[in-house]
Structure formats: structure tokens, C-alpha cells
């Protein structure tokens, strides 16, 4: 049961990382902000250039 719970936690962490939710949380912590439209806009502005430079394979 403990193993299953651990697997579920890792799966959720993976999905949150892939979908940048974890990155947004780190950004809020680092910048000392609460989630808001303005904070998300700032996150995207910081994040976008790096992200859109990432190639995606064929």
C-alpha cells in the first residue's frame, strides 16, 4: 500500500513537472508572490523564452 502511494505521488509529481505547475510554484516561492493573473504573466514572461527554445522531437 505504501509503495502504491509512493508511486502515485511520483506520478503526480511527474505530471505536475511536465505541465509546468511545479515550475510555477517554484517561481511563486522564489519571488515571494501569491498566485494571480499578474504573477502568472510574470512567470510566463520569465519562462517562455527558455521553454520555446526547447526542441521537441519528431
Amino acid at each position, binding site marked *: 500500500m505504501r509503495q502504491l502511494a509512493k508511486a502515485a505521488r*511520483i506520478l503526480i*509529481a*511527474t*505530471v*505536475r*513537472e*511536465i*505541465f*509546468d*505547475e511545479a*515550475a*510555477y*510554484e*517554484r*517561481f511563486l516561492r*522564489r519571488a515571494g508572490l501569491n*498566485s*494571480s*493573473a499578474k*504573477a*502568472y*504573466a510574470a*512567470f*510566463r514572461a*520569465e*519562462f*517562455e*523564452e*527558455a*521553454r*520555446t*527554445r*526547447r*526542441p*521537441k*522531437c*519528431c
Partner: protein
Amino acid sequence: MNKTISILAWSAVALTGAAAVGVIAVRRGEPINALWLVTAATCCYALGYRFYSKFISAKILALDALRATPAERLENGRDFLVTNKWVVFGHHFAAIAGPGPLVGPVLAAQFGYLPGTLWILAGAIFAGCVQDFVILLFSVRRDGKSLTEMAKEETGVIGGIVAYAAVVAILIILLAVVALVIVNALKDSPWGTFTIAMTVPIALLMGVYLRRIRPGKVLEVSVLGFILVLLAIWGGQWASLNPGVASVFTLRAPTLAILIIIYAFAASALPVWLLLAPRDYLSTFVKLGTIGLLGIGIVALHPTLHMPALTQFVDGTGPIFAGKVFPFAFITIACGAISGFHALISSGTTPKLIARETQTRMVGYGAMMCESAVAVMAIIAACSLQPGVYFAINSPAGIVGQTATAATATISAWGFPVTAADMQALAQSVGEQTLFNRTGGAPAFAVGMARIFSQSLGGETVMAIWYHFAVMFEALFILTVLDAGTRVARFMIQDALGHVYKPLGRTSWYPSILGTSALIVAAWGYFLWQGVKDPLGGINLLWPLFGIANQLLATVSLCVATTIIIKMHRARYAAVTLAPLAWLVAVTFTAAWQKAFDTNPRVGFLAQARALAAGPATSATGRLIFNNRLDAAVTIILVGMVALVLIESARQWIGVVRGTREVTVKETPFVMTRLAEERG
């Protein structure tokens, strides 16, 4: 005791794998079950990972769990971040898995299931996984440097320039070919076109939701987007049955090509948050879910493979693309076995997230194994179709004939019986007017996938929904590659132009954004237009070009890897990268030579140009001749550049082995990991 059990267990895996590969290789004249492929793949991957990757880790790379990685040393909470190994694995897999491992194996199935399956298994275990693994580790040991930077440092300036040029060339050809796949899947299909058109407003809505309504709730909005896409698929059926709406969404290939070119230009120039990012999230959500579902569906249904192990087209007379099984099977299947493009990802985001060197084995080698498994699924989906149906969907009208009767007569004469009535019934069952002349692999894969899904869930009555779900899944994938690829290529061009005139390098300067976007879109749009207007469907022209370019990039990355291994004084183990390098050189150089100079007009670009010049002149003749000469020139230039890298690398290897060249490995100096100290 444990050791004895381990030996017995691994012996059993080896014997089972050998038996499964034996059945696949030897069985002739009767269909085999897909489970043989699944068993062979599972056992081969298990053995490859347990023994071969461990050998590479221990003997060549000497992975060091005590050495701090850039994620730890340079942690900044953004690019560099110590991350759980499974999370990095998922991230890496999501980046390397695209439409390539789905489309390539479907096209290569024209040779039968055997060549493709063997290449996917052997190519992944001995070449693709090795490349991804070693490049990832070498990048980790160089502060996450990119392939082009490593090529410049380790093999010289020529290596760096060629790697850069190869990446841009591959991106251009790749974008053209994936755009052609989508055009061929959507032409004259109001249902498919409506569904895909709807994904644009859905993505825009997701962008606004993410930015303004529930900031940062990506998973939530992706689920919402997925539900809306399912509604769009359902709405597509209504659109296809309503004559007024259907006429709006029934588009010919040239019209679709123009719309896709306009879309990609807009996506490259628009703010990312509005369209690109939400579509990327939606595509990733659908991609991971569908691949998982397809795997479960194949194991649950274990369909019979109706395609023979080998077809007569191994002699080079194939209708989908011309050329013999060697070398063309090995460039047609790229991403499922080895893809140079992966080296960009292994030296991009991933090395900056790795917590310990020892994890590069699981992430680099392991994720590529999963990609290869996706390619095996694609082979199964294509080969579970009746061969007559497979060839009717994938063969261009220029080869099999313009009418349904002519096409079925030609294909039946090859020994793959199919009737016009069969094809009509199949088209009706998937909600299409026709499935003839749907070159590109995507529709054939969609039919195979819809068969597997509908037989597992919902039966024949929902076959059309599953088919359009599969088309949507592939198109979403491809559009994401298209808009992200256009943007990446734009940045690369801007970086280069910035050295000539500084403002051109500024990614926020609109004249530069518009100019470079237009340049990139025009470049791949030209090749797309060439494919759309090609009388043989375009895939015969563009897919081999893409395969050659992608495998040439793999050649460059294996040159870099071999150079580093030799410089690390591990020359006696250099065969680990040298053997796949030699194979790729043989494959790509032969394919390039044949594509440029073969005297058969269906194979050689220049022979085709000569045949066109000698034949009756039409208004398109001049353009077709120019295009064939251009394709020949592109192929020769690419091969010439990679030959320079090879020569430069070989000089380095010989110099190091003879002791006449100074060995300077550009690794970051060893720093003890803090993570190990903390653990005690």
C-alpha cells in the same frame, strides 16, 4: 542463492526473447500474433537495459554517484534544478516522443513487418539508446552544454558549424514532411478538418483561462481542453453530415497547405501564452494518455498481423516510397530506432535536471527504449490491417491508378486482394468519403488504431469516432511540432544573424521576429508545396530526405561521442559508438548516393529530372525539374558536410591513439556532491 535465481531468471528472459525473435524471423506464409512482437520487444529491452547499458555505464562512462551534477552545482530554480529521476524520465520521454515513431514504421511496413521490427529492436538497443545515454552523460559532465557546443569543443570548429547547419536543415525538412503528413490526412475530410480547426479556438480559450481565470492550473485546463476536443470530434460528425458545413471544411491539399503555412507563421509570431503553450499542454496530455491506451489495447486485443514478414517490395519497387530495403528501411524508421534529433534534447533541458550521474542510464537509455516500444506499437497497428487495405490507403494515385477500380485491380495483382467495395465500406465506417491515396502513414495508422480501440471498447459502431480521435491525436502532435519547431528554428536563425547585425538577434524586436519567421516558414513551406504538388504524393520525395538528414545528425552526435570516449582513454571500448556510427555512415551515405544519382527515376532525384526533361512538357515540368535538382543538391551538401565532420573526427581519433595529439577533454572538474554528504 540469489545469484543463482538471477542467472536462471535472466536465462529464461533470454530464451523467451530468442524464441519470440525466432518466430518473427522464421515464420513464413501464415499470419502471426502481435504478442510475438510484444514478447520479443519486452525481452530484448530488458536484456539491453540490464546488461548492455550496465556495461556501458561501468566500463566506458564510469558513472560516478559522488560527482555533483550541474543541476546541483548551478541550481537556480529555473533551468538547473535537482529533480526526481522519474520526473526527469517523464519529462525527457514527453520531449522525445513525437509523430516520427508512429509514421516511420507505418511507411516501412511496405517491406513487411520483419525488417522494421528487427531494425527497431536492434537499432534502439545498440544505437539509439546508446546515443541518447552517452550524449546525456557527456552534456551533464559539461554543465549541460548543447550538442553543437560539444561538437565545436571536441571535434573542432567544423563540427560545430556542421552540427548547427544540420540542425537547421533537419528542422526545415522535418517541418515540411510533418506538414505534408497532416495535409494528406485532412484533405477532403470535413470531419477531420473541422476537429483540427476547432483545436485552435480551444487552445486560445485555454490560454485565456490559464492567464486570466485560473492562473497556472495547467492540468485542470488540459482536462477541460481534452473534453472540448472530444466534443469537437463528435461535432465533426455533424459537420461532415451537414452539406453546408461540410462544403466549408472539405479542402483540397493545396488549400490546406496554405492554411497550415499561415497558421505556423502566426504561431511563431504570436505571444506564446495565447496559442503555443496551451496547445503544447493539450498535445502532451493527449499524447501520453493515448500511447498508454494503445499499449493496453494491443496487449488486451493481441491482433493478428496480416502483413507478410517480407513483401516483394524489398527489391525497391515499393509503391509508398521507392528504394531497396537496404538502406531505405533504416532511414524511413528514424525516431523508433535512432534519431539525431534526440541528441538535441539529451543535451538540452534534461542534463540540467539530473540529480546524479547514475540516473542518466535510466533517463537516457530507458526513455529511448520506451520510444522504441511506441514504434513497435505503430508496426503492429499498420500490419494488423489487411495488406490490400494498407496499400490502398498508402499508395499514391500516380502509382496505383486514379480510380478505385484501377487502384484495387493494381493492388490485387500484387497479391494483396482488396476490392473497391471493401474500401468503400471501410471509408464509410470511419466517416470518410474515401481512403484511397491517403499517403503519409497517418491515416493508415489511424485506421489500425481505430480497429484496436473499437474492438476493445464500443465495437464497430464507434469506429468512426476512434478513427477521428486517432487523426486528431496525430494532427495535434504534428501541429505542436510544427509551431514549436518553427519557433526553435527562428531563434537559431536569429542567434546566427545577431552576429552579423546585433538587433536581428534580439528575440523581442518585431522586424526580426517577422522576418526570421517568414524566412523559416518560406523555407519549409517551399518543400511542403513541392510535396503537395508532387504527382506521386510527395512522401516518396520528402520522407527519405528527412530520414537522411535526421540520421546524418545522429552520425554527427556519434562522432562527438566516439571522440570523447577515445579522449577518455577508453579507445578499446570505442566500438560501442563506433559500430552504430559505421552502420549509420553506410546507411545514410548509400541512401544519399542513391537518392541523388540512382538511374531509376523513382529513386534518383537527378534521374527523375532527366526523365521529366525527356518527357512531354507541361506547365509544371520546369518546376518539377528544378525541385528534383534542388533536392539532389540539398542531399549532396548535407552528406558533404557530415563527411567533413567524419574526417575531422577520424584525424582526432588517430592522433589520440598514436599519441601525436594532445588530449584535452573539456569536462567540468570534479566536485563532490553535497547530496551524498547529506545522506551521510
